[in-house]
C-alpha cells in the first residue's frame, strides 16, 4: 500500500523516476526543474537505480542522447523547463517522428524574453504540436501519478509516442504537499517490462541491420506522418484504459479531463494546472451563493480529447477559457482556439470567452478567478458577449 509523505512536485518527479528506474537519463539543469536531476543524481551516486546517467552539455544533447538510448532499446527519461524545452524543439519532433517512447518531466516556466523563471504554460504550449503526449497536473499527487502512467501510455505498442508530464513551476515544483507514494514494487509491477521494440542493440546482436531515421521524400513522408497521427489517435483509447487500471489498483482514477460541478452548470471555466485548485474554491463559494458555476480541468492536451471536452461543456451557457499563455495572434490564447474548435460542431454551443492570466508567474488569487466568473455572469445576463479576450491581473 501507498505511503503518505510530504513532497514537492520536483521531489515527486525524482522519486517517481527512481521507482521507474529507467535505463538511461540524460538531463541538463534549468530552474525550476534543476532539483529533479540533482535529486536523481544522488540516487545514481548512491546506487539506488541501475540508470546510466548522462550529464550532457545541453538540452539539445539531452534529447538527442535520449533518442539514441531509446532507439537502442532503453527506457529513457529526461526533465527540463522553459528555455531548455525550447532548445530541444528540433529534437522533440524527431523523437516523436521516430516513435520513441521517451518520458520527460517538464516544469512549466515562462519563455524569454524577458527572462523569467516563474510559471506559465508558454513553454509546453509551444511544443503542443510536436507529436508528444501532453499530460498536465494540478498538484503534487497528480504530478507523480501522471509520471507513472506516462510510461505505460508512451510505451503502449499502439501508441509508441514520447510523453511529457507537466507540473507548474514553483507553485508545485517547490511546494510541499501530501503525496501518497506507491511502493517501488507497485510501480515496477504497474509499468512492467517495456514491450519489445525493434532497436539498434537488438539489431547488432542478431546481426539484422536496421536503418533508423532514413530520408523520406514526397513518396513516403506523408504515410509516415499519417501513421504517427494514428498513434496519437490510438492514445485516445489507451489513456483512459491506463487511467482506469491505475484507479482500480491504487484508488485514484484519471481520465482526459476533470469535470467539477459541471452537471447542471450555466457558467464554467476551462483551466489547466495548479490554478484549478484555486478555482475549485471559487466554484464552491459561488455554488453556496446559488450560482450554477462549474469548472473543466484539462489533464490531457495531446491527444486533444474532443469528445470529452464537448460532453463536458455542451450544456453550459457561457464558458471562460483560461490561458496561461499569450497567443500573440492579436486575437486569443491557444487553449481558447482548441476549445473553440472542439465545440464548433455542436448545434447549440455556449458563448465562449477567453482570459489570459498568470504570465511569468503573476499570482492568481481567488479574486482574479472571481473577476472571471463575474464576467461570465454578465455575459449570461446579457445573453451575448461583447469581448473575446480579457487580461486578468495585468497593469494596462
Amino acid at each position: 500500500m501507498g505511503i503518505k509523505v510530504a513532497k514537492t512536485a520536483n521531489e515527486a518527479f525524482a522519486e517517481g523516476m527512481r521507482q521507474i528506474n529507467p535505463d538511461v537519463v540524460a538531463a541538463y539543469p534549468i530552474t525550476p526543474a534543476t532539483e529533479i536531476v540533482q535529486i536523481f543524481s544522488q540516487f545514481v551516486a548512491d546506487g539506488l537505480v541501475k540508470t546510466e546517467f548522462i550529464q550532457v552539455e545541453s538540452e539539445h544533447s539531452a534529447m538527442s542522447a535520449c533518442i539514441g538510448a531509446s532507439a537502442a532499446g532503453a527506457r529513457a527519461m529526461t526533465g527540463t523547463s522553459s528555455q531548455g524545452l525550447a532548445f530541444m524543439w528540433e529534437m522533440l519532433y524527431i523523437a516523436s517522428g521516430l516513435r520513441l517512447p521517451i518520458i520527460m518531466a517538464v516544469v512549466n516556466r515562462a519563455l524569454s524574453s524577458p527572462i523569467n523563471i516563474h510559471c506559465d504554460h508558454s513553454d509546453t504550449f509551444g511544443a503542443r504540436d510536436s507529436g508528444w503526449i501532453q499530460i498536465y497536473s494540478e498538484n503534487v499527487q497528480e504530478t507523480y501519478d501522471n509520471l507513472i502512467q506516462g510510461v505505460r501510455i508512451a510505451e503502449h505498442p499502439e501508441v509508441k509516442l514520447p510523453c511529457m508530464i507537466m507540473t507548474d513551476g514553483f507553485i508545485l515544483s517547490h511546494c510541499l504537499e501530501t503525496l501518497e507514494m506507491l511502493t517501488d514494487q507497485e510501480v515496477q509491477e504497474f509499468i512492467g517490462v517495456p514491450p519489445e521494440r525493434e532497436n539498434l542493440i537488438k539489431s547488432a546482436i542478431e546481426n539484422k541491420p536496421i536503418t533508423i531515421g532514413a530520408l523520406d521524400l514526397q513518396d513516403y513522408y506523408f504515410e509516415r506522418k499519417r501513421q504517427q497521427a494514428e498513434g496519437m489517435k490510438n492514445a485516445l483509447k489507451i489513456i483512459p484504459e491506463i487511467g482506469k487500471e491505475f484507479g482500480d489498483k491504487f484508488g485514484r482514477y484519471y481520465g482526459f479531463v476533470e469535470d467539477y460541478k459541471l452537471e447542471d452548470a450555466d457558467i464554467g471555466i476551462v483551466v489547466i494546472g495548479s490554478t484549478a485548485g484555486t478555482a475549485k474554491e471559487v466554484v464552491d463559494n459561488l455554488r453556496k451563493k446559488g450560482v450554477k458555476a462549474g469548472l473543466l480541468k484539462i489533464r490531457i492536451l495531446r491527444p486533444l480529447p474532443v469528445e470529452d471536452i464537448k460532453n463536458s461543456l455542451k450544456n453550459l451557457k457561457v464558458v471562460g477559457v483560461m490561458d496561461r499563455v499569450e497567443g500573440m495572434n492579436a486575437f486569443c490564447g491557444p487553449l481558447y482556439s482548441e476549445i473553440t474548435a472542439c465545440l464548433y460542431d455542436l448545434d447549440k454551443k455556449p458563448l465562449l470567452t477567453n482570459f489570459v492570466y498568470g504570465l511569468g508567474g503573476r499570482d492568481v488569487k481567488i479574486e482574479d478567478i472571481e473577476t472571471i466568473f463575474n464576467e461570465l455572469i454578465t455575459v449570461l445576463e446579457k445573453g451575448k458577449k461583447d469581448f473575446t479576450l480579457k487580461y486578468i491581473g495585468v497593469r494596462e
Partner: protein
Amino acid sequence: MPNIKELAKRESRFVSGHRLCAGCGAGIVMRQVLLAIDKPVIASCATGCVEVASTIFPYSSWKIPWIHSAFENSAATISGIEAAYKVFKREGKINKEIVFVGFGGDGGTYDIGFQALSGAAERGHNVLYVCYNNQAYMNTGIQRSGASPKFSHTTTSPVGKVIPGKVQWQKNLVDIMVAHGIPYAATAIPGRWNDLVNKVEKAVKIEGFKFIDILSPCRLGWPHESELTMEISRLAVETCIWPLYEVVEGKYKLSYKPKEKKPVAEWFKLQGRFKHLLLPENSNLLEEIQKEVDRRWEELLKKCES
C-alpha cells in the same frame, strides 16, 4: 593489421546503390572505416551528403544498425546509444562486444555539431567519432565551413572582385580534440587505406573517446575530375596541406613523411575552388598559403619529435 586480401574478403558494410556522386570520397571513407572493424558496429550519422545519399527510403546502404536523427547531434546520439549498451551490459542482458561509431561531415563536426562533440569527448564515451571532412557544406550546395581552407571558393565565400574566397584559416580540430584529453586522435585520407584502416583498428581497441578526421575529396564541390579522388587525397598529404599523424595519449606521431615535399600549387591545380590562386596577380596569396603550410608542417614535426 589485415592485408588487402583479407580486407577484400570481409563483408562490405557500406554497400553500393547509394546516390553519392561518382568519385565521392565519403563513400570510400565509410566503407574503409567499417571494413577496419571486425566486430558488430552501431553508428550514428549527422545530416549531410552521406546520410542523404545512403538512406533514401526504402533503401539503405548500411549493413549495420544505423541511426540518423539530426545535423548537429551525431556525437550526442551515439552517447545515448553507448549509455544504453553500458546499462544492458551491466545488467547482464547482453555480453556481446559492440563498437560505437559517430559519423559527421565537417559542418556537422567542426561547426554546428561541435558542442555535442566536445561534450561527448569530455564525458569520455567509448565511441569512435569519424569526421568525413570534405571542407564545406556540400549537401546544401558547397557553403563554407570552419574546415574550408583559406582562399577556397565556396558559395558563401565566393571569389569576387575584392574578396578572394574564404578569408579565414580552417580551425585545427585535431588539436582541439587533443586538448580534451582524449586517448586517441588522428588524421587520415582514403588514398592511404592501409594507414586509415590501421588507425581505425587501433582506435576501436582503445577505451574512451576517439577522434579521426578524414579528408574526403568532393568532386562536386572542390571540384575535381571524378577519377582523381584517391590521388587528390594523397597529394594533400604530399604537399603537407593534410599531414597524416596520430596523437596517442597526447603524444604526437607522424604517420607518414613525404619523401619530397611538393608545392601547395600542385594540389590547388587540380581543383576549381583554388583556380584564382594560380593567376599571376594572386601570387602573393599563393605565397601566403605556402608559408603558413610550411610553418604548420614544421610545427607538427616539432610536436612529433618531442
